[in-house]
């Protein structure tokens, strides 16, 4: 009973926080919350590779950008009503691309895999910037139309919330399934997994495809928030900040990356308001967290939860 409560508590918190915002959030809060859940989906999908399977991809932005550009360009060409369909085409395209890139890159190990993913993403960024007659180049694409029903920040937030929640549920089930256990096994000891008779490469490829698919959905959703997209979405700093946010939140916990994204975006918003040296402040916070609490914010709260538990109080950790 208690155990079940512990597993469901993060979900409860998720619904309480992001659900209640629908009723109480102001325009700006809703805009920030939309960014948090969408980038949160990106980070959690990334963590399927990183925290679960132990694969550090430095190029997940390629799928994020792909999702955004497919959705944005299709809605732009075929009209706002096509927006939702484009959101379905984007992950399909990402799966195809991930098989191609996965077959090429997953055979390599560790740092070589990381470098190759980075190279592919930079290549995509280069194409996006140079092929300006098709992609709009470095100016990006603006005035992306959406269906009437999704107009306005709040409606779009509700729409994103429903989709992100569904995606998170699927990823959560996956994380707890036997397949998820195999992925964790690959992280801990790939040799042993192949001795059991499992195909390590095939599992890695599947994880890569799943991660890419959900990343593209996040990218597609992002195209609807600001109704504008940019080649920045492909660039390596995008992949890099997702890695940072994941580490900040805690990569060994399912919701850790989402917490990292939320903290990062809130800090950027609040500190950016007060000082122009906000990146310095965020850098300092990152260093503190990584050096003192390598398990991220989730690690910190678990630490304190344990302290509370010792004192006799009951506390569920998020």
């Amino acid at each position: 009973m208690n155990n079940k409560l512990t597993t469901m508590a993060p979900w409860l918190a998720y619904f309480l926080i992001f659900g209640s915002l629908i009723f109480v959030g102001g325009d700006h809060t809703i805009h920030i919350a939309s960014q948090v859940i969408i980038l949160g989906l990106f980070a959690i999908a990334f963590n399927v590779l990183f925290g679960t399977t132990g694969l550090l991809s430095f190029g997940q932005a390629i799928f994020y950008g792909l999702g955004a550009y497919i959705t944005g360009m299709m809605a732009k060409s075929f009209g706002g009503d096509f927006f939702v369909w484009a959101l379905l085409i984007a992950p399909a395209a990402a799966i195809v691309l991930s098989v191609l890139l996965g077959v090429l890159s997953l055979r390599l190990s560790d740092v070589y895999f990381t470098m190759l993913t980075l190279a592919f993403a930079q290549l995509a960024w280069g194409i996006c910037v140079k092929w300006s007659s098709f992609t709009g180049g470095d100016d990006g694409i603006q005035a992306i139309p959406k269906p009437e029903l999704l107009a306005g920040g709040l409606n779009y937030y509700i729409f994103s919330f429903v989709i992100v929640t569904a995606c998170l549920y699927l990823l959560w089930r996956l994380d707890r399934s036997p397949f998820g256990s195999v992925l964790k096994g690959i992280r801990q000891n790939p040799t042993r997994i192949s001795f059991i008779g499992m195909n390590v490469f095939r599992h890695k490829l599947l994880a890569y495809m799943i991660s890419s698919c959900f990343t593209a959905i996040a990218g597609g959703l992002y195209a609807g928030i600001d109704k504008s997209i940019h080649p920045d979405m492909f660039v390596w700093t995008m992949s890099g900040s997702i890695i940072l946010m994941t580490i900040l939140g805690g990569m060994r916990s399912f919701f850790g990356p989402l917490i990292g994204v939320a903290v990062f975006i809130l800090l950027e918003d609040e500190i950016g308001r007060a000082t122009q040296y906000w990146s310095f402040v965020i850098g300092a916070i990152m260093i503190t967290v990584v050096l003192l609490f390598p398990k991220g914010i989730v690690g910190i709260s678990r630490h304190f939860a344990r302290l509370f538990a010792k004192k006799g109080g009951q506390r569920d950790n998020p």
Partner: protein
Amino acid sequence: MKRKTVSILAVLLVSLTSVASFAAETIKIGALYPMSGRGGLYGQDSEAAIKIALAEVNAKGLPGGRKLEAIVTDDQSKPALAVTLAKRYITEDKVKFLYGVVSSGAALAVTEVSKEYKTIFVGSDHAATDLTANAFQKYYFRVSNNTYQSMAAGAMYMQETKMGGKIAYIGPDYAYGRDQIAELKYSLGKLGVKYEMVGEFWPKLYEPDYTSYITAIIKAKPDVLVSGFWGGDTVAFIKQAKAYGLFDKMKYFHPDGGGNYEVFSTLGAECPEGLIMSARHHNNWPDTKENKDFVQKFHKATGRYPSYAAEGAYAGILVIAEAIRKVGNADDTEALIKAMEGMKIKLPEDPAGFTSYIDPKTHQIVQAQAIGVTVKNDKFPPAKYALGKMKVYAADKIMATEEYIDILTKSKKK
């Protein structure tokens, strides 16, 4: 104990909100500029110029005794961040105007926010012609020249000085660089200037080493090298090309941003003589009281001379204040738009006898453009050179034609 804290907090909160409601008497402008990295100087200069302009307009007074106030935030020239900040300005800070923006990509994204929230956006720096052409929306105004205007003036200069013949172009490989040469070719075609393109060179933005381009340009033997560099890239290219003697072999023609003050101040004595350039504002031209006052005030406030960005940032505040005076308040957005359309306003960069005005149709400010050549001038240290022998091109002759706006709209599918 706890209750005491709560009540103290409550009192604090109440007093804070009452202060906030009192402060709401001011009319807020939400400005976005890069404050660090390349482009950071433009943001810092713009912020200083905004302060100067605010002091002037507030001293002169606004209807109802209200004051103008500007909030400046670092947008890092990132479109997504600029959009987030713009939305926050409108929904949280309740600004009446969005302002500034250096990156054209960010400006194109912010103009969408302006349209969606029906909030006026006064662009002070970005040069992409698109904003007042194919991506135009009625809440957008621009108070500095766009690249079309610079290049149209450039084409007239080439015609006048018979600079045709073999032409090569070098510019950064992104929209700003691509647009400039397309616009120059269009204007040269309109004027019937004969020329032959012997090469187009596209280094990346912020390229550190231009050697391979310089040798290729010298090999192509053009009579004129047209340049579309931006900011620090101009300085890097000039330094490197000088070492190869490029400027002795051909004319260097840089009509949009070559003559920016920060180029001269960084090059110092290393600046070659006889380069043909322009900028959106010059510290030494025109020789009017308005310009001298502006440059001196800026120098007094910051200890340095302004880059072109400062004048644009200064101009926009005057335009906003003038519109509020005409309408009598800052709440009737539609009336403010009407007031700004066709508004005449005397600015530091206006030569004697000319007053800038805002084109009612495209919301683009119409200004004269002066092109000159580099000559020794140490009145604005640390620069040792400045533009001289200015040729001035009438404002109405260099506006983007409807035909060109059509071409742009079709080619960019917007």
